[in-house]
C-alpha cells in the first residue's frame, strides 16, 4: 500500500501539522462542488425541513465528502507522490503523517453520518455512509488500480450528493433526485477521460489503468463521444419530464450541444497540440457545464 506516504510522513512529528494541511486533506475544491450539488437536491425537493436543519445537513454532507477525501489521500499517498498533479498533497509532501490522515478521515466519516442521521433522518445518513464507503473503499481501494472502468463506476460516488440532499429534505428518494444522480454519473467519464488524455504519462508511471493507457487514445475519444451524447440527453430530462422549466430546457439543450461538439472535436483531432487543446477545452467546459446546469436548476427551484 502506501509505503511512500508512510516513510515520507516521518518528516513531520505527529501533532505538528499546520491547520491548513489538515484542511487540504479534505479536498476543499471537490467539497465545494459536492455542497453545491447537494444544495440543489435539497432545495429542489421542496421538503418541510427547517432551513437551519437544511444548513446542518449540508454541513454534514460537506464533512462526509471531506472525510472521504482524507481517506483517499491516505490510501493513495504512494501514487500521489509520483504524479505531478498530486505530489504536493499533504501526505506525500511530508506535512501530515499518513496515520493522522487516516484518523481524521475515519473520525469525520463517523461524525458526519451520525450527525446527519440525528439532524435530517437516517435515509440521508445511510446514503452518506454508502457514498463515503463507495468512494473510499470501492473506488479508491479497489476499482482505481484494477480496471479502466474505474471512474465510470466510481463516478457514482460523486453523483450521490444531490440525492442525499433530496433525502435530507424529504426522507425519500424521488425520480427527480435519480435524474440529478444520472446527470452527474454520465458527466463524470467524459470529464475525467479528457483529463486522462492530458495526463496519460502520469497515470502510466504509477500504474493506474486509466482508459487511454489501457485501451488507447482513439478508443478513449470514442467513449468520450458516446458518454457525451448520453450525458447531453440526460441533461434535458428534467425539462422533458416536467421537473424544470423552459429556460432550463433551453440552457441544457444548448450547453449539451456545445459539450457534444467539443467531444466530437476531441475525437477528430488526434495529434499534436490541436489534440491537446481539444481535450483541454472539453475538460474546462465540462466543469462549466455541470455548474451552469445545476445553477439554473437552483434558480428555477427557488422560484426566481
Amino acid at each position, binding site marked *: 500500500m502506501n509505503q511512500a506516504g508512510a516513510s515520507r510522513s516521518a518528516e513531520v512529528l505527529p*501533532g505538528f501539522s*499546520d*491547520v491548513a494541511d489538515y484542511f487540504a486533506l479534505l479536498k476543499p475544491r471537490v467539497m465545494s462542488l459536492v455542497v453545491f450539488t447537494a444544495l440543489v437536491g435539497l432545495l429542489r425537493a421542496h421538503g418541510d425541513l427547517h432551513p*437551519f*436543519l437544511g444548513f446542518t445537513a449540508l454541513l454534514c454532507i460537506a464533512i462526509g465528502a471531506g472525510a472521504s477525501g482524507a481517506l483517499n489521500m491516505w490510501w493513495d499517498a504512494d501514487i500521489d507522490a509520483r504524479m505531478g498533479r498530486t505530489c504536493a498533497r499533504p501526505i506525500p509532501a511530508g506535512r501530515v503523517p499518513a496515520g493522522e490522515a487516516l484518523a481524521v478521515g475515519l473520525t469525520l466519516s463517523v461524525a458526519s453520518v451520525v450527525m446527519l442521521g440525528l*439532524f435530517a433522518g437516517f435515509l440521508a445518513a445511510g446514503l452518506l455512509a454508502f457514498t463515503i464507503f463507495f468512494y473510499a473503499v470501492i473506488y479508491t481501494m479497489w476499482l482505481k488500480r484494477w480496471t479502466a472502468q474505474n471512474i465510470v463506476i466510481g463516478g457514482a460516488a460523486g453523483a450521490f450528493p444531490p440525492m442525499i440532499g433530496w433525502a435530507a429534505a424529504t426522507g425519500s428518494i424521488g425520480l427527480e433526485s435519480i435524474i440529478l444522480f444520472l446527470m452527474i454519473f454520465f458527466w463524470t467519464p467524459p470529464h475525467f477521460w479528457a483529463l486522462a488524455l492530458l495526463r496519460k504519462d502520469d497515470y502510466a508511471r504509477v500504474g493506474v489503468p486509466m482508459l487511454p493507457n489501457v485501451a488507447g487514445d482513439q478508443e478513449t475519444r470514442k467513449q468520450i463521444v458516446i458518454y457525451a451524447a448520453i450525458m447531453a440527453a440526460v441533461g434535458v430530462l428534467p425539462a422533458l419530464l416536467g421537473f424544470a422549466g423552459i429556460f432550463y430546457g433551453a440552457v441544457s439543450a444548448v450547453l449539451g450541444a456545445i459539450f457534444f461538439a467539443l467531444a466530437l472535436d476531441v475525437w477528430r483531432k488526434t495529434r499534436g497540440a490541436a489534440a491537446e487543446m481539444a481535450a483541454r477545452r472539453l475538460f474546462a467546459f465540462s466543469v462549466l457545464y455541470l455548474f451552469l446546469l445545476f445553477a439554473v436548476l437552483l434558480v428555477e427551484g427557488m422560484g426566481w
Partner: protein
Amino acid sequence: MASTKQKRGIVLTEEQQRIRRTRSIALALVLAGFAILFYLVTIVKLGPGVLNRPL
C-alpha cells in the same frame, strides 16, 4: 549536560510552538462550534418541547 537535557525534556522550536498554538485554537473553535450547533439543532427540532418531560 546530559542531565540538564533530560530535565528540560523535548524543547519545541518557535515554529512548533506556533503550529501547536494554532492547532489548539482551531480545535477549540471547532468544538465550540459543534456545541453551539447541537444546542441550536435541539432548539429547532424540539423547541419549547425540550423542557416538556416527566420528572
